[in-house]
């Protein structure tokens, strides 16, 4: 609308001014001038018509929008005119912004997201300390119950324990993530039902077994039961026990832990239905600590005040609840409260890599900004003549600065768009990386939320203003005449100094990233190529638990025997076995033992152990050095036997033949019948340790993982294994199916992720540095073309000229490297805990880093150098 009015006005203005000009000309013809002369004189008298029009338009009052449109059009046109500049600037910004947005999304999810319950910041967790050392954050059921009853500080205190639940149906069993909860669970969290009612103290009958009822999550209700409106009252067979659904929790509630998704809640007094082992009888004992507490502070109470109230009460309860006979022996502990707004025991394995990455991306942003500033300065410098011309034609400085700012803004917006796309991709990839190998239902959920998009936009605007304003201001200095006199493309001295500084800073900062990437790559290489002591390739692992479908321990044992027999009979399967501890899965068991005839040292009292079936070493291709493997005759009633590794021999019976030696484990006399090669046990980053293997039949263990060595392709192998298991029991749930190599790879996820990202960023920032240096040298060459021409003309050799610029570039690189080395060494210290098999001061890697920069620097200056030595003296002297 205003556009058409605008057009009319514009025409009228044209007519009005034309009329004026005509009259003016007429006057002059009347005075005797010729027509042409008169028109020319009139035009002269009227002055700068374009400027008049501009000023009139300004009087109309909508010039801001108008000229903004013009500026935008102009900005697009001029950026299209130098696509390389635009592309590099946009990509640099996009890289900086994207990387930061992605990592900050993780930081946001890890550090700032609260549980989706009302007033989550009032929630606190409870931990026990002895002599200032954290010892415990789980408590017994009586402790939780009494504390809840007697304290004055909380509006509710809950205890919970996560359990694996299998949902038995006619078609088999589905694993679910459940938790057993105390009666105060939902009132403490202030969760509302979406349907039905939630659990309360009445369901949690402490004296007997609680009500067989459960509450399911909204997500499970929707996903598993299709939002069935008649779900209430339905009976579910949970790990072979019937439970009736009494309610559905509100949408969005996923339990009291940020990184897990709980499917259902069950009264804590029914925990025995879902737990195995000798502890089941102790669930209500005050000696068995297992429940994770979470409490809600009373309004107006601070964390410290509440702690002061709760601590003495907890200490009193601790004494009161233990057996009177051991009361005097009890060591006093203190109890502390912590912020529970993120729920309980946050998985902190993410923290370290994310913090490191935060530092890295911060550097990337700095480097990207330096690069963009460098580009803008160079561009502004090369346009100085253009600006001088425009200023002399009557453009105002404000207008020029604004126009340059619009250009930076266009760059920033494009960079922001690229950055958001990059962030989206990075978040996706990183989530996959970080969540791989976590048990199902446990994951870190990170999304690009509006807050982070706002963050990206703010970041890009800030970059645009900070790095657009200075060059814009500088290059529009109204020193028209000297600028017009200068040769094209020359720039003030301050600009050049600034650019040199930026390039040096870029190099120094990039070295930090490159060095870190080098250290991480070496770490990953070491972790990958390390000799594990066994061969995880072609081994598939899985878990089954017959007792989850209601088997007794004896039934369960024979089920395992049948499964192994079936597996061994399958073609394509070369060995099958089972073990309590799957090596490198993170679990461990240690046992007390004694070596008769050897005085026990305190450090020798315990050693790591594993309970295994026959064929375990065959399955893992772990070398048997002497003696024999376990066999089917090693059962409960036969003589107890053990296999040990070399380190065990070295530490406990050095220089002796271990075969036939006896050790004491508890009341059992155990004969060593075999010796195997050392292998990694709990974690690849730890040292190998002495290890005892016992036959499963001679231990009281439960819960095995089955290991299968197969030549079949992974998919077929899994199907075969499934069939073998289900021939034994069709309803037996199989979970945790995974290739062992995959599991081990996932154990070094954070190293792989860090290495991947640090290497990616290294390549990019090195490129940025190269571009910065290239630009600077190319600029110097073009500025000094005439001088070079003169030099050649008076007989300088090509090498002399080359030296001229090489000196400049090596000086800058040298300065950058000099500043970068101490920075790199200092920052690498933060990486220390993540390194493996390499020192954080590794000289070789540092040397490599320096070498890469020197090479990159020389390469970057070679192109402009080639141009310099090819300058023809005659052409150069004409060059303007």
């Amino acid at each position, binding site marked *: 609308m205003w556009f058409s009015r605008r057009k009319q006005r514009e025409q*009228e*203005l044209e*007519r*009005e001014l034309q*009329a004026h000009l005509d009259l003016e000309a007429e006057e002059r013809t009347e005075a005797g001038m010729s027509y042409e002369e008169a028109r020319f004189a009139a035009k002269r008298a009227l002055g700068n018509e374009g400027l008049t029009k501009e*000023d*009139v338009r*300004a*009087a*109309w009052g909508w010039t801001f929008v108008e000229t903004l449109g013009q500026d935008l059009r102009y900005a697009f046109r001029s950026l299209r005119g130098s696509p390389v500049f635009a592309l590099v600037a946009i990509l640099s910004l996009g890289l900086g912004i994207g990387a930061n947005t992605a990592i900050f999304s993780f930081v946001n999810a890890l550090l700032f997201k609260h549980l989706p319950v009302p007033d989550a910041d009032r929630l606190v967790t409870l931990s026990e300390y002895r002599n200032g050392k954290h010892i415990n954050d789980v408590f017994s059921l009586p402790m939780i119950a009494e504390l809840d009853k007697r304290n004055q500080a909380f509006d509710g205190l809950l205890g919970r324990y996560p359990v694996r639940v299998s949902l038995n149906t006619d078609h088999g069993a589905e694993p679910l993530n459940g938790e057993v909860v105390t009666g105060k669970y939902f009132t403490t969290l202030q969760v509302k039902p979406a349907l039905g009612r939630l659990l309360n103290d009445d369901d949690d009958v402490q004296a007997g077994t609680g009500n067989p009822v459960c509450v399911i999550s909204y997500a499970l209700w929707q996903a598993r039961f299709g939002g069935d409106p008649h779900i209430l009252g339905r009976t579910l067979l949970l790990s072979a026990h019937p439970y009736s659904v009494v309610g559905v929790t509100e949408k969005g509630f996923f339990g009291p832990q940020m990184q897990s998704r709980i499917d259902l809640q069950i009264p804590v007094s029914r925990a025995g239905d879902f737990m195995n082992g000798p502890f089941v009888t102790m669930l209500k004992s005050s000696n068995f600590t297992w429940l994770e507490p979470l409490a809600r502070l009373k309004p107006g109470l601070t964390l410290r005040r509440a702690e002061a109230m709760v601590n003495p009460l907890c200490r009193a309860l601790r004494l009161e609840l233990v057996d009177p006979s051991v009361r005097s022996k009890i060591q006093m502990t203190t109890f502390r409260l912590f912020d529970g707004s993120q729920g309980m025991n946050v998985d902190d394995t993410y923290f370290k890599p994310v913090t490191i990455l935060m530092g890295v991306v911060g550097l990337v942003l700095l480097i990207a900004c330096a690069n963009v500033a460098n580009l803008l300065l160079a561009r502004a410098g090369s346009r100085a003549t253009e600006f001088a011309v425009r200023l002399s034609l009557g453009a105002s400085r404000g207008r020029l600065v604004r126009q340059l700012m619009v250009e930076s803004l266009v760059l920033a917006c494009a960079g922001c768009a690229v950055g958001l796309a990059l962030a989206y991709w990075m978040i996706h990839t990183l989530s996959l990386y970080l969540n791989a190998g976590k048990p199902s239902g446990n994951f870190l959920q990170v999304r690009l939320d509006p807050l982070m998009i706002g963050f990206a936009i703010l970041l890009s605007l800030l970059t645009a203003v900070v790095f657009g304003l200075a060059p814009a201001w500088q290059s529009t200095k109204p020193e028209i005449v000297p600028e017009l006199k200068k040769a094209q493309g020359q720039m003030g001295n301050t600009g050049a100094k600034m650019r040199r500084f930026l390039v040096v800073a870029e190099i120094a900062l990039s070295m930090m990233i490159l060095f870190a990437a080098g250290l991480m790559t070496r770490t990953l290489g070491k972790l990958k190529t390390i000799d594990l002591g066994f061969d995880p390739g072609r081994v598939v692992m899985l878990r089954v638990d017959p007792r989850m479908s209601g088997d007794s321990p004896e039934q369960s044992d024979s089920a395992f025997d049948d499964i192994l027999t079936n597996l061994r009979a399958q073609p394509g399967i070369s060995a099958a076995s089972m073990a309590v501890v799957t090596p490198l899965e993170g679990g461990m068991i240690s046992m007390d033992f004694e070596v008769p005839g050897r005085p026990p040292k305190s450090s020798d009292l315990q050693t790591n152990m594993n309970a295994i079936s026959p064929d375990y070493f065959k399955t893992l291709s772990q070398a048997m050095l002497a003696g024999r493997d376990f066999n089917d005759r090693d059962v409960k009633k036969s003589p107890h036997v053990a296999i040990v590794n070399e380190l065990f021999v070295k530490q406990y019976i050095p220089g002796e033949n271990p075969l036939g030696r006896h050790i004491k484990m508890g009341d059992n006399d155990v004969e060593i019948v075999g010796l195997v090669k050392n292998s990694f046990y709990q974690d690849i980053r730890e040292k190998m340790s002495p290890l005892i293997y016992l036959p499963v039949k001679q231990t009281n263990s439960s819960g095995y993982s089955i290991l299968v060595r197969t030549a079949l392709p992974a998919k077929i192998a899994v199907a075969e294994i499934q069939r073998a298991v289900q021939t034994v029991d069709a309803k037996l749930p199989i979970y945790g199916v995974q290739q062992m190599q995959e599991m081990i790879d996932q154990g070094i996820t954070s190293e792989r992720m860090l290495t991947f990202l640090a290497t990616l960023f290294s390549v990019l920032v090195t490129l940025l540095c190269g571009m910065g240096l290239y630009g600077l040298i190319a600029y110097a060459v073009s500025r000094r073309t005439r001088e070079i021409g003169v030099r050649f003309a008076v007989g300088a050799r090509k090498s002399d000229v080359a030296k001229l610029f090489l000196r400049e570039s090596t000086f800058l690189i040298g300065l950058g490297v000099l500043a970068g080395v101490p920075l790199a060494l200092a920052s690498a210290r933060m990486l220390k805990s993540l390194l493996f098999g390499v020192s954080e001061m590794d000289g070789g890697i540092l040397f490599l880093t320096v070498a890469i920069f020197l090479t990159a620097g020389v390469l970057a200056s070679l192109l402009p150098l080639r141009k310099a030595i090819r300058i023809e003296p005659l052409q150069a002297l004409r060059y303007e």
Partner: protein
Amino acid sequence: MGKDFTERIELLQGTLDMLVLRTLLFGPAHGHQIAKHIQRTTEDMLQVEHGSLYPALHRLERKGWIAAKWESAGKDLKREFKFYRLTAAGRKQLLNEEVKWKKMTGAIARVMWPKPASEEES
């Protein structure tokens, strides 16, 4: 024609508006006429640049002090000019500016050419 450049006086900031309004008190006029009128009346002392005249006219129009209309004029009826005329608000504005201008010139005069004390009292 016209005086020598050196004898011309730069228009004081803000006075052009007043002069334009005052000129239009005689009746509607187009831009050229306004400029000529001011020039002639001041015997070419004040040269109205068209680079400041037209922005001023459009500014005054926007403020509602003058109104414009395209009309044919003079001997040549085919040619149309944009005629500006004073509005009621413009008259009031002119009065305001005149009062302000008088006060200011009076004040300046008192500084520049102080009168004897006795006269001032009378």
